[in-house]
């Protein structure tokens, strides 16, 4: 794990109405690693995610992706550059089939350009390829028998899996998962976890927000802990779990907070 970090945050600041939501300096995500972003409610994790991926503008900040300054780029441009995110509540396209949901995530589709859209011979070929790859990923996600159903008919956990498959279809360099386990029943969790750990071997760096410390310890290479918008600890799971500042940040929170639903 040498060389340039995949994602490097130099400094990001964002406040709402006088309250500091995010005030982060120096986070580096190594290529090929799995990094967990943890912290109690309101620590600013999802907000940080939103800022990095272009869904929210910070008051000020600089961050680099694959060595390039991407601060201020729009969300879709970042996704095209290889930084793909998922959402806390799985945002699948309910009135598209599972297959369509995944196929459409393919990048660089010529058929999506207006000038080629009407000339079907220009995209028939690539469409067939994308479809094959999509079916592969749907199988990998364990949703094979739902391929032709509308995504709206899927359960919450299944939607999370679909969202994951769809995100991987983008062939991302950095995959940012916002609470990938939220709403997933325990039976599916292991499956989901296993899939996430496979990703680095496919060349994908993973950064994810999570509350469940067991999950986090099991699969992460390193952990970043936030509280009240700031980073309070960085290190391996063992180091962070032992860090008194982290324990203090979580003290006084009911266990329900650590597994909860909203943000």
């Amino acid at each position, binding site marked *: 794990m040498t060389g340039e970090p995949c994602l490097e945050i130099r400094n990001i600041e964002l406040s709402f109405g006088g309250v500091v939501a995010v005030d982060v300096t120096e986070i580096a995500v190594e290529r090929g690693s799995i990094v967990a972003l943890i912290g109690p409610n309101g620590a600013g994790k999802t907000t940080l995610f939103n800022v990095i991926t272009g869904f929210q503008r910070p008051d000020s900040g600089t961050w680099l992706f694959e060595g390039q300054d991407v601060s201020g780029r729009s969300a*879709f441009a970042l996704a095209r550059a290889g930084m*793909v995110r998922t959402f806390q509540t799985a945002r699948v396209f309910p*009135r*598209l089939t599972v297959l369509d949901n995944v*196929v459409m995530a393919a990048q660089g589709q010529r*058929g999506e350009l207006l000038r080629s859209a009407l000339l079907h011979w220009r995209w028939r070929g690539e469409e067939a390829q994308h479809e094959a790859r999509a079916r592969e990923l749907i199988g990998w996600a364990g949703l094979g028998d739902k391929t032709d159903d509308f995504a709206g008919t899927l359960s919450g956990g299944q939607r999370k899996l679909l969202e994951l498959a769809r995100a991987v279809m983008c062939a991302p360099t950095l995959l940012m998962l916002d609470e990938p386990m939220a709403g997933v029943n325990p039976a599916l969790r292991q499956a989901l976890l296993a899939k996430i750990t496979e990703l680095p071997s496919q060349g994908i760096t993973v950064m994810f927000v999570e509350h469940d410390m067991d999950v986090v310890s099991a699969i992460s290479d390193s952990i970043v802990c936030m509280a009240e918008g700031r980073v309070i600890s960085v290190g391996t799971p063992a180091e962070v779990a032992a860090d008194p500042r982290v324990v203090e940040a979580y003290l006084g929170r009911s266990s329900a907070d650590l597994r909860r639903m909203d943000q």
Partner: protein
Amino acid sequence: MAIDLGSAAIDGLRAAVSVPACVYALAGVGLNLQFGYAGLQNFGHIASGLVGAYGAAISVNEGLPLWAGVIVGISAGILLGFVLGLPTLRLRADYLAIVTISTAEILRVVINSARLQDVTGGPIGIDRVADDFYAINPLPVGRYGVGGFSFNQNTLWTMIIGWTLVALACVLVWRLVRSPWGRMLKAIREDEDAARSLGKNVFGAKLASLVIGSALGSMAGIIFILDGGFAKPEFFVSQVTFNWYLVVILGGLGTILGPPVGAVVYWFVIAVFNSLLTQIVGNDGWGPIDPTDTGAIRFVVVGLAIIALLAFRPQGILGNRAEAGLDDR
């Protein structure tokens, strides 16, 4: 009081295929792309008809041949799509509604104003626009058809060209919608942010829909003035946009054949209704209703129809309730 249903039916059939119906169908295809597929609230669609018609009319008035005028008109429609979309598509949806309706009104008032009368003809408009068009009409002079259901050669020629364009437009939209671009548009309509997270250029797709729809609207405006050969600002008032909304919703939002079906049904029903109402009200009125009120009654009916459709059958004639998705919009 004897009511002649037969002549009312003939009036209806005639209106259902005549030029206004195909104009509404063509403009409807454009609006359906913008609103039905892309989810854009364009309340100024009549403006595309206005710039198309006047682009052509002013060109002809200034001495250009009609074919050049048509190019000018359609280019104006495309330009209008960009002018409307570039500043507003990044804003909230309601703002697009307000800006489009404002722009349509601005354009109409400017064209209507006395100040620019030399160029635009002001409230009187421009005539003799379609001479070139009639000149290439292959149909010999005469009336075609049976009894009340008949048209003169120029109107029939316009109808043929118009409905052909409607068919072509439907094919165009059909191919677009079935392509990856169309799938992307559908996804954008479902969840914009999710589409962005997958690298889709949401702004570009919406702008393209707006521009294509506007181009179709401008063609509709040109066909409309080819029928009589003259353009007047009063043809392009805001109310017409909402007649078009009714047509598109009636036919079925987000379906390919919805707009032509909606246009045909709309004109049939309106014409029959008008015909019957005129017979009933006659010259002396009927109860509290005067002969001069029939136009107003028609608008009341249009308004009620829009409300009733949206409340009870938002998918229209051809649509599919689950697909129509009007429940979340």
